[in-house]
């Protein structure tokens, strides 16, 4: 298991500013689980991972791997990278071009002390290669591997010495979009099969959702929200988390009545539409209402119910293949995005009604 406690790291930059790249980050991963750190580039997720690996030295905070302290700035404990029980998959895969596949994967065993017997190295390497489905390519030169194969070799190399912790730094970002989708699934299966504790860093929410048991959303060096993927998606606690975890309409408004954990009437800015949604605040509070585009029903005919229904005009529509994204101008400061199927009855300029499911909308204090 991994425990990270109040980790901080600053970098000296050229203009002498000292931004906290990692700002008081704490989380833990139980044995056999996969935890994803998700955030935009520059949010500090990779630095956090590198501090756990020992490739960076944290300014303060404690890192424990499998119960043993590997880094504790306050007590000047810093275990060098090569002594930590880790395996790591790098963004560029870092497959050594002067070795073949077997050489790459067996490397961690050949440098370990005491060095295992030759036969044991062979067996364990082949076992790791089998786990990633590369057992038939052991003799292949590293320079003759496709992106997906490099990915597998990198994973096999990272797990061959059965580390207590597997670290993955944006492992899919170098693949093209189509391959990324298949590899995402396979990677998830492989990690589950190996059963290793894993820390996964990514900027792609789909990867985090698919792979992680728990995830932390990072922004400007802090973990702003943590939880299992479904909860995070359904109940973001900030507009940042809401918009980073997927497309979201964020509509500003004000609680008119109710609230306090019960149903509230929220008046949306602009044309003054009213929504009845569960909200925590009290009347008078300024709030943001988060509405996912796929949680909105769009119809050309006026629906029968009239609570949580807004009328508007189709300002623009973008054909995306399986879905169409409609921008509905309904008097809010920004057009509301709705995703739905292509429908010949819905054309730009047409009058439409949108129904918002109050159970699927979240109200955030502003």
């Amino acid at each position, binding site marked *: 298991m991994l425990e990270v406690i109040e980790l901080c790291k600053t970098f000296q930059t050229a203009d002498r500013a000292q931004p906290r*790249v990692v700002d008081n980050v704490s989380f833990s991963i139980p044995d056999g689980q996969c935890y994803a750190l998700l955030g935009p580039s520059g949010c500090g997720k990779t630095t956090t991972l590198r501090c756990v690996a*020992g490739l*960076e030295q944290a300014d303060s905070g404690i890192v424990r791997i499998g119960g043993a302290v590997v880094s504790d700035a306050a007590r000047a404990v810093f275990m060098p*990278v090569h002594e930590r029980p880790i395996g790591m998959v790098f963004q*560029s895969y*870092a497959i*050594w071009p*002067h070795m073949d596949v077997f050489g790459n994967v067996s490397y961690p065993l050949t*440098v370990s002390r005491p060095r295992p017997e030759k036969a044991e190295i062979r067996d364990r390497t082949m076992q790791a290669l089998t786990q990633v489905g590369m057992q038939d390519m052991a003799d292949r030169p590293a320079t003759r591997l496709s992106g997906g194969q490099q990915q597998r070799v990198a994973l096999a190399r990272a797990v061959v010495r059965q580390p207590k912790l597997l670290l993955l730094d944006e492992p899919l970002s170098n693949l093209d979009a189509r391959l990324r989708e298949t590899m995402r699934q396979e990677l998830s299966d492989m990690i589950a099969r190996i059963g290793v504790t894993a820390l996964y860093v990514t900027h792609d929410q789909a990867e985090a959702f698919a792979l992680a048991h728990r995830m932390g959303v990072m922004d400007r060096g802090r973990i702003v929200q943590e939880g299992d993927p479904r909860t995070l998606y359904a109940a973001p606690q900030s507009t940042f988390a809401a918009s980073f975890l997927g497309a979201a309409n964020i509509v500003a408004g004000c609680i008119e009545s109710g609230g306090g954990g019960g149903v509230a009437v929220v008046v949306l800015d602009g044309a003054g539409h009213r929504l009845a949604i569960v909200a925590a605040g009290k009347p008078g509070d300024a709030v943001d209402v988060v509405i996912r585009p796929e949680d909105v029903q769009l119809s050309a005919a006026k629906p029968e119910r009239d609570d949580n229904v807004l009328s508007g005009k189709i300002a623009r529509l973008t054909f995306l293949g399986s879905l169409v994204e409609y921008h509905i101008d309904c008097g809010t400061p920004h057009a509301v995005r709705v995703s739905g199927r292509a429908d010949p009855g819905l054309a730009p300029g047409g009058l439409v009604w949108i129904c918002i499911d109050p159970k699927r909308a979240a109200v955030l204090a502003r």
Partner: protein
Amino acid sequence: MAATSATRSLGRPAILVLSAAAIVAAYLVLVPLCVLLFSAFRGPPDYLPFESQARWSLENLAALYHNTALLGRMLPDTLMSVAGTVICTSVTAFALAWLVERTDMPGARWAFVLILFPLLIPVNILAVAWIYLMGPNAGWLNVALRALLGLEGSGPINIFSMGGLILCQSLVLTPYVFLLLLATLRSMNPAMEEASAASGASQFTTFRRVTLPMLLPGILAPVILATIIVLEQFELPLMIGLPARLNIFAYRIYYELNPADGLPNYGAAAAISFVFLFVAVLLLFVYNRAVRHADRFTTITGKAYRQKQLKLGRWKLPAILFLCGYLALAAVLPATVLVWTSFFGFTVPSLDALPTYSAAAYRSLFSDHRFWLGLRNTLIVASLSALVVTVLGAALGLIITRTRLRWRGAVDVMSFLSIGIPSVIVGLAVMIIFLTVPIGVYGTIWILLIAYSYRLATTTRTARAALMQIHTELEEASTASGAGWLTTQRRIVLPLLAPAMASAFMLLFIIGAREFTIPLVLASDDNIVISVLIWRLYQAGQSAETAALATLVILAVLPVLLLARLLPIARSSMD
């Protein structure tokens, strides 16, 4: 957040290995420099600078500046020879590079190989060949020209003149500048020229308004480098400048150490060195600026483009004549005159001379113990110093690219400074050190090894460039696999660095094998090397033996030259 791996603290083995390398490097480069500066301020002139009777004084510098006769000759002569050489070299090298790289010149690949020829041969061998070709009386070219034009007496070409010196120095220097310009030409994005053509500009307008201005910064750097190299030139000022009564600085230092009468004047030699070192270092910083400026221009991105080849059309014949003329003078004729002379003595070739064929020169050479000693010494010193410098360069490259040590900038500057130190000055400084420190190195080949190994710039730059190409994640993957620093260096970094360092080693080996100045300054009976033996034979008037030895050197160089054809830089000029 990548590329910050260096923030992690280095372990003890890393610190130990890297500091040791830095200390050795500093010793090789900085100690000679300090000794030299020190010596310039020690007098009186007939004492060694560290002898107990010597004291601090400005005598040396004062004597130099009051010696208006010397300054009045040395400064203009040096200036004239440097300026003339740099101009001739730049024009010739640019024309050659342009013809080989950007036109449909036939036989460009073979031309490339021949152009490199002077780069591999010791300069004093070339000087001997050119003297045999253009000596005022019996020089082959003069004999031929006199017969052709019906002239009498000597001439019309006199190699022993400022013009002759400039010609020879330009021929020696052209291959360097040619190679650097080739790289510059290749790095130019052809889209820039295509955009000009698409805007309606003619080929000539495009060359004038786009190509030339974009290339200019990339041309400036090689030209400054050429200036530094020519300033350091010693062989030609000695062998051609001296008979022409020209006072060139590098020769002057040697003269102060080996005056026609009296004792060596170390102080005066140091004082002259002091002045020229200052100029060389100044030029070096201008060069550094020029290179950085060129980077900003982004014509030099390290990326090579496939260049569009211009059709020469009716310019083909003049271009071929120019190329053939250059190659004849720089490679073909010198090789021919040496081979001929080795068998027939120094005579003008004719059918009548054929029966006088004799291999006596080779027999006498092979029975001369100096030949075998010189061969052994040359191989030992050249390969060991190349090894030392390659290993140190790799370590300095690691310090510069892979650590955040506070003094890594100083290491970079120091290795770079070594380009600006003329070898005659290194020879002088090492001489003063080991005359003072009696550890039995003086007069052996080990003093040569120490003196040769100051040329750290090439290998450091090579290592630095190669390390920048090696993604740091490759090393991090090794440490994350459980390997320590030393294991990572041995199993990951060194194998990946090896190809680049092997070519740097080759280059340094060639430079070491060609070296003449340092072994001449530090010469003894025991540490003779091939280039010094050439000089001794030439001075003794043994022209057949001189030519025989030169021929052997050319034979040794031929395979290297043919290998050069396989270098990437040669290949892409024809693909």
